[in-house]
């Protein structure tokens, strides 16, 4: 679904590249954690998949297309096959939950009938049925992220990219969000989640790709977050209570809390 062949991305020719000769393949239907410290190249990887940036060298394949050969007017079609979720949710504050999700469908020209059928469906999928009339500021952080996920998957994308989706959430909520991504993955969508939330990674036991300074240093089938290759620093969690223990290895509390 996503294939990087020796991809290098250099923003500033005098500095080290953001991605350095990365070879990586993500198969259809996979769930991959992309881990690494800030500045390790996770976001650059996601931006390359979206063709927000072009690779400096190497070849990027996404959904069967070689992005280097994709003309710019075809980029919107590529992006319709990719859903994206961010740390800061990026909801439109003046629109209700329903309108926020509908917006993504209106933009790509879905009919009113299709939108009215699809939106409640995806809201139910993300666990927000009945909250379509709320405004974003009336929702908790976790709920807002669920709206963002609903918006990302409403168009039925083949790939869902999540860039630190739990960065602003407390551990319990984070795990709930990750479980939701897992559910979406279970429906056939390829999910790539960039994170430095060790609890989440450790508890999910999914494929883990670790980037350090733009290089892939680890690609483990059922990995955890912690290895010897990098020191683990507790991630900044602005919204979460500081008394939470982030290094809780299995994350069982979180799992039971969101079940």
């Amino acid at each position, binding site marked *: 679904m996503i294939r990087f062949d020796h991809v290098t991305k250099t923003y500033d020719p005098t500095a080290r590249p953001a991605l350095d000769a990365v070879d990586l393949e993500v198969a259809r239907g996979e769930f991959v954690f992309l881990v690494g410290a800030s500045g390790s190249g996770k976001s650059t990887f996601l931006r390359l998949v979206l063709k927000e940036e072009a690779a400096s060298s190497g070849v990027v394949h996404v959904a069967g297309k070689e992005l280097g050969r994709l003309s710019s*007017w075809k980029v*919107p079609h590529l*992006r319709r096959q990719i859903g994206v979720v961010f740390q800061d949710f990026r909801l*439109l504050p003046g629109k209700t939950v329903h309108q926020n999700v509908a*917006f993504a469908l*209106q933009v790509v*020209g879905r009919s009113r009938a299709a939108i009215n059928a699809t939106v409640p469906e995806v809201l139910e999928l993300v666990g927000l049925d009945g909250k379509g009339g709320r405004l974003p500021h009336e929702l908790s952080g976790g709920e807002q992220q669920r709206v963002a996920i609903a918006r990302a998957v409403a168009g039925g994308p083949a790939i869902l990219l999540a860039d630190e989706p739990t960065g602003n959430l407390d551990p319990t909520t984070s795990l709930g969000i990750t479980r939701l991504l897992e559910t979406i993955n279970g429906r056939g969508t390829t999910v790539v989640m960039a994170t430095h939330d060790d609890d989440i990674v450790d508890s999910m036991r999914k494929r883990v790709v670790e980037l350090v300074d733009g290089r892939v240093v680890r690609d483990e089938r059922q990995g955890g977050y912690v290895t010897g290759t990098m020191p683990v620093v507790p991630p900044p969690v602005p919204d979460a209570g500081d008394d939470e223990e982030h290094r809780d290895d299995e994350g069982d509390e979180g799992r039971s809390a969101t079940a």
Partner: protein
Amino acid sequence: MRLAFILSEIGIGLRRNLAMTVSVVLVTFVSLTFVGAGALMQQQVRTMQGDWYDRVQVSIFLCTQDSYSASCAGAATDEDKAAIEGALTSPPLSEYVSEVEFETREEAFAQFQEQFAGEQLSASVTPEQLPESFRVGLQDPEEFAVISDSFTGQTGVEQVVDQREVLEPFFDVLNGLTAASLALAGIMLVAAVLLIGTTIRLAAFNRRRETGIMRLVGASSAFLQLPFLLEGVIAVALGAVLATGALLLAVHYGVTGWAAQQVPAFDYITTADVWATAPWLLLGGVVMASVASLVSLSRYLKV
């Protein structure tokens, strides 16, 4: 669905950016008014030329009883007239001449009365004081000298007048005003283009959250840019409508209602000419707005 969506986006944009939108409307209003005024003044020049200037280019005034000119010994005789007419209608002069008309005293008097109707002058003039004349149309108005040289000093001819010289100062004024208003219009248009560019940029910045999401979910660039483009076009179209209104008022009250009353001898432009100009103002404004918007959008709103 998409149309309704785009329209609602435009509505949001125009309201959010109201002050800038109003300034675009006003600047285009002023600049297009000057453009239109320039065009209408040229139209006025052409109207006058078409009506009078081209038809009668040279008048050969014949001697009257009271003429003092050296070539006059009393009023022009029938032989004099026959000689002049013969010269005008036979080679070599006939090659230059497109038409010849003889104006009798009575006709001259009637026209004089019409031209100066209601003024004191018209009451004190008698037909005998006015000269008979040959009114000569030329193939090429520039060939005035040929006629002038042939007939100046000929017996019975008091004076050969190039009618263009009568109107020339008036045309010079109109041409000068046209140049001035087009220069002003040019400056205002530059301001309008820059203002539209800035406004679009601001609008794109104000809505970067929406456009960011639209890009991510795969909106085509046309769909992304269309609301902004149409915002500029709508503002400029409003400006063009206001400019048309201003020109209609100016022509209705200034030309038809005033100048045409003061100096009725000329033909004047009417509001019909304004209506004929209006679509071009609108079209020009829309093209200008589209180009300015697209340039601005291509820099600040990429896919």
